């Protein structure tokens, strides 16, 4: 449920309680999200259980990776572990691309993935220059909207069957 509580919390405890009540009511009414007993495709699994936080410096920004590697933006990050190839995918905005520079400190949360003998960090979250970019969701799927402006949908409700899963 998308109640957008943070901006309203200080102003309205009553509103918070209402949201909490609705959330609890929704959770109790709804079928709960369940993970399938079977794992995702073996080659296509995001290892959420072994996420890492990588802190380093951007050594390179590569929008045209070599054939066979995941498509889209890659950051080469110099870290204590060595140089890490971090995959950010094809959905970065122009603003994000323009803001990423060699030499810039960066922190990336993600999971390592070996493809064709090479290790990649599948980035879920990237923090640089005072901004946070959500690259993937908690299941490792790339998020396809990074605009500064919002989805112009039905703001009063949203998909609530996730019980606030995201």
């Amino acid at each position, binding site marked *: *449920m998308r109640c957008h509580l943070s901006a309203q919390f200080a102003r309205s405890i009553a509103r918070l309680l209402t949201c909490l009540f*609705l959330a609890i*009511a929704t959770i109790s*009414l*709804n*079928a709960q*999200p369940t*993970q*399938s*007993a*079977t*794992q*995702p*495709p*073996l*080659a*296509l*699994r*995001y290892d959420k259980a072994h996420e890492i936080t990588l802190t380093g410096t951007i050594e390179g920004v590569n929008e*045209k990776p070599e*054939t*066979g*590697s*995941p*498509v*889209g933006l890659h950051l080469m990050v110099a870290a204590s572990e060595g140089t890490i190839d971090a*995959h950010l*995918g*094809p*959905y970065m905005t*122009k603003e994000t691309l323009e803001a990423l520079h060699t030499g810039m400190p960066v922190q990336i949360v993600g999971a390592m*993935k070996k*493809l064709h003998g090479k290790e990649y960090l*599948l980035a879920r979250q990237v923090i640089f220059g005072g901004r946070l970019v959500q690259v*993937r*969701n*908690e*299941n*490792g*799927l*790339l*998020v*396809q*909207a*990074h*605009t500064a*402006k919002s*989805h*112009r*949908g*039905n703001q*009063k*409700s*949203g*998909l*609530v*069957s*996730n019980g606030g*899963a*995201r």
Partner: protein
Amino acid sequence: MNFRRMIPLTIVLTMLAALVACSSSSSSSGSKSGPVIAITATGGTPQSTTVAAGFATALSATVTSNGSPASGMSVTFTVVAGGTGANGAFATTTTSDTETTNASGVATTSQTLTANGTAGAFTVTATATGATTPATFTLTNNAASTLAAGNYVFSLAGTDSGAAGYASSFYSAAGVLVVDGGGNVTGEMSFSDFNYYVKEAITGGSVAVNPADSNLLITINTGDVNIGPGGNTATGTGTLVFSAAMASSTRGLLTEYDSWATSTGELNAQTSTAALCPSAPGTPCGYAIYLGGLDASGNPIGVGSVITIDGASGAMSGAGSVFDINDGGTLYPNLPVSSGSVSAPSSDGLGYVTITINSGAFAASPGIVLDGYIVDANHIRLVEDYYVDTLNSTTGGTALAQTGTGKFTSASISGATYVIDMPGADIHGALQVAGMLTFNSNGTVSGNLSFNDIAAQNAQGGTAITGGAWADDSSGTGRVIVTGATDGATFAYNLTLYETGDGNATILSMDSGDVVVGLGRAQASGLGVSSLTGNYTLGLYQFRSGVEFDAEGQVTANAAALSLTGFTDQNKSLLGTGLKPNSSVNATYSGTASSPIISINGGGGSTFTLYLVDGTQSVVIENDNAQLTLGYVTNQ
């Protein structure tokens, strides 16, 4: 010399003279006539095709020597242009094709002959050494026709350049084109991308033959500044252009074909605008549905459902209805429907309906609201109205009518094989899946599957499914749950199918690592490589470097030469290389007489796997890591 001695000598001399005479006569005869060589056209004449399309039947000429088949003779087929400029070309050697006669004296062209862009008649001659008169084949290029007057429903899904102030986005569109006898277009459409939803009138437009080939160019005008070239700066023309490769006069495969957006879809003559399920509540009727797109946070989302209309005037009680959601890998299976409705078709005769699905799974109603455009009694094209519904996602899809609603059992699908094609997304980006899924009577699944997300894919020919199980959900809805369809190494998919009862299904993946949605089609038996022959229309959904580009066109499968030749109109605008009309297709294919899986090799090392559905349609997927291609191929 006495008389008795003269008699033998006379006989001998007479015989010698006769021998010399005979010898002389024989020698004279041979130098003047020899064996009589003749050549005649015995296959492929007369025939016709649409301009720019391939001729479906190979040309055959039979050579005889003194009336008997002459094997091993060289025969040259040569194209002779017609008076109007109508002409044709062989696939590789253009003006001529030389072949050798077989034991029956028959020589057959191995290269596909393709019409040029000019209507009219032309000929091909066939000559053989010793034959004084060539064989002549009569060929006709028919002018491409535009759409006949009537209503046509279109549906598209792809990527646009974004509405004002926004980045490019997944979009979905559907609507009705009202075409008059002069090729003028009006109608209405629903459009939805991540930032903008609208249902609006199509105020003008046109249909014309693409001068580069025989596809159609359909232009629609809406006056909406948020769509069309310029739409990303709120100065849009409101004009969209579709390219249509027609499989028949009533059905075509579409791409959006302008600089603002690219997509794939279908165009169908509208044959019904009747209210859905008028026999309810006495006889409930149901629809299998899939929706795909993005949720409000930009996560890929898929919805699969069966809805059952069981009340008067399109009302749904919820009985017999169910839906599943895969929202960015977070799974919500087996959600109940509390109520719903399908509105009466619009009074303007365009066959527009509103479908509403409510559920306790949503905090508010309406849960899901869909704009529906009725194609016929069995198909409705859908665009979600996320401005009003609670799902709040940018999705589109299709509803397929069920037969035997509420009475499905495991026997409904047991033993059948479905060819599936499903685009979507996984942890690396765009994902495409195609294959064959067999529902074995012992509850296991088998078959063959290909997937590709560029970073990972299986080899050409797909991979055998060696594990997995299926079960009917036992409630009669036609919902079938497949768990763990795997090759044991590279993939393992959980899929939910929603049967129609007439050999079709909608499909949704229920995995935490991917979201794919699409269609399944029951596969016919007895298919093999020879099943791929003749003229086809194809639509291709493609990505390169994570950017969508699309194509549709026409190809000829030459079963003798195992070649595919033809053309596509490509929209590479989002790749920055613009529109590519009449791009040539040259590929070879191979397979066995008893397998419905065919390997296709294109240029530049590109490899594809084609899964035959029956003698009229197939799905195709690219297996290399250069780009993604998921296509649908249907007979002309």
